[in-house]
């Protein structure tokens, strides 16, 4: 049985966000080996996965649901352009609404319910006290544009990629907790363009292989991969838009506060074919855990040390870790008997 969402905690200002022991136990630790290396590392997202895990269902709803939805509301209020959908993506947005509402109501019947009579749908989200009737496919029958409407009810960032000419284009999305990329700037880019700033991988042919794989994903066979970086404080919105507000936090890591302030940030990325539009859903579900909490698991602590220690300099720079990388490695070394 899943833990019900907690009361609202914050991802800014006083940072009251915390993980319960159960949330720590189910944290999707991303490193399969001691040395970090680049790979496409995509695997089938077969559901249901292990009971209670982050991989159990298509969309993971956990104890941070209310907090993350409140945070998303703050970001959108400050800057409504953090959500966009080009006109040709309307059908894809409805594909996403169907996929989300059907799976949420089946996977979490205690929190969500859906009843359908042809195109007349009735949706209830008991956690957010939403109770709406609308006509499927008719965007005017929703209280908000379809991408924003469903995006405000799902944890994690969402992008819908239009597939044309064997390529994928970033033509719709709601991105309020990104690891340093801007939907407004990257809008409309091809797969390789929006990955343009990523070092090393292009030369290794990673994106050619990934693109070939992704464009061929059939309906009903989602795949997933994990990505990661480090974040100072439990800040969800580490976007370029708000960088002037949080950039200075990177200079505040000391040997004394690493455990409390530094967080491992893991993205569970799921790619799922949208049936009617042939678009590809790219959902990026973000999990944050403080180093103190992470190191309650000795295996994770040891491995985290080894991964950071062997991380190539290009990636240290790209992930924005330069200012505190050495401090973090030194602090973690106490958990590694080989150091």
């Amino acid at each position, binding site marked *: 049985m899943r833990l019900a969402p907690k009361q609202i905690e914050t991802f800014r200002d006083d940072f009251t966000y915390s993980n319960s022991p159960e949330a720590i136990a189910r944290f999707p630790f991303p490193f399969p080996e001691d040395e970090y290396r680049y790979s496409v590392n995509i695997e089938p997202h077969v559901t249901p996965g292990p009971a209670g895990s982050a991989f159990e269902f298509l969309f993971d709803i956990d104890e941070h649901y209310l907090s993350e939805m409140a945070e998303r509301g703050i970001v959108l209020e400050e800057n409504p*352009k953090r959500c966009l959908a080009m006109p040709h993506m309307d059908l894809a947005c409805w594909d996403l609404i169907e996929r989300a509402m059907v799976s949420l109501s089946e996977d979490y019947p205690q929190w969500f319910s859906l009843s359908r009579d042809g195109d007349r749908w009735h949706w209830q989200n008991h956690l957010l006290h939403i109770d709406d009737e609308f006509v499927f496919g008719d965007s005017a029958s929703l209280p908000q544009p379809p991408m924003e409407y469903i995006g405000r009810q799902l944890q994690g960032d969402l992008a819908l990629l239009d597939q044309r000419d064997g390529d994928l284009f970033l033509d719709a999305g709601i991105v309020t907790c990104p690891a340093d990329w801007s939907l407004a700037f990257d809008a409309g880019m091809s797969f390789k363009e929006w990955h343009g700033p990523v070092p090393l991988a292009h030369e290794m042919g990673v994106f050619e292989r990934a693109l070939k794989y992704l464009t061929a994903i059939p309906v009903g066979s989602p795949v997933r991969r994990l990505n990661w970086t480090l974040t100072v404080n439990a800040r969800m919105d580490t976007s370029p838009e708000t960088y002037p507000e949080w950039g200075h936090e990177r200079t505040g890591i000391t040997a004394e506060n690493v455990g409390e302030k530094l967080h491992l940030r893991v993205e569970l990325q799921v790619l799922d074919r949208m049936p009617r539009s042939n678009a590809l859903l790219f959902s990026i579900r973000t999990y944050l855990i403080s180093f103190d909490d992470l190191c309650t698991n000795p295996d994770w602590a040891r491995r985290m040390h080894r991964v950071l220690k062997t991380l190539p300099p290009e990636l240290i720079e790209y992930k924005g870790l330069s200012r505190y990388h050495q401090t973090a490695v030194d602090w973690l070394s106490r958990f590694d008997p080989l150091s």
Partner: protein
Amino acid sequence: MNDAVASYTVKSRPDYHEVAPDQTAQCHVFITDSAGLAQSEALCQASPVAKKQAWHIGDSDTLPAGYEAIQSGDWQAVLGEQLSGFGIATAFYVSGLEAFLWQVHGVLTKAGFAPSQIHLEPPAGNQRDVFCTHCYHITPDVSTTPARCAGCGRLLLVRDHFSRLHCAYVGVQINAEDPAEVPPTEELS
């Protein structure tokens, strides 16, 4: 965000090659701003004497023979209207500053022409348009990094990450992590 100008190549930055006239096209159209005029004229003279059209976009009194003027005001709308007379097998040659090249590219693709029909010459200068990720303002004709955003006044690191939709490179505040750091100004490539 990076502390220095990215040391690796960014793949969203377009590659440009020398342009040769497309021998199969039924019609050739040359479009240039003032910076690209010499390039455009040379190419125009080298191309086969099929059906030709040449436009200069901008405010100029003296134009080479064969070039028609489109005033810089709302030139994108004017150009779009002019295009309706051209057939599907038309080749376009665009010369000028980089942002201009992609603005024309946008007008042409919106009119239904395919990227393979649109030949962009290497940019006629190092000036870039820069999209500020903080206020979304686009500052034109930037030739150094860091550069001041004309919208919010922040000092922006200009990166090589390019958007064809915005016809601009991305700019991110350079000293957000430590305001004491003001790196030396460098000329853009």
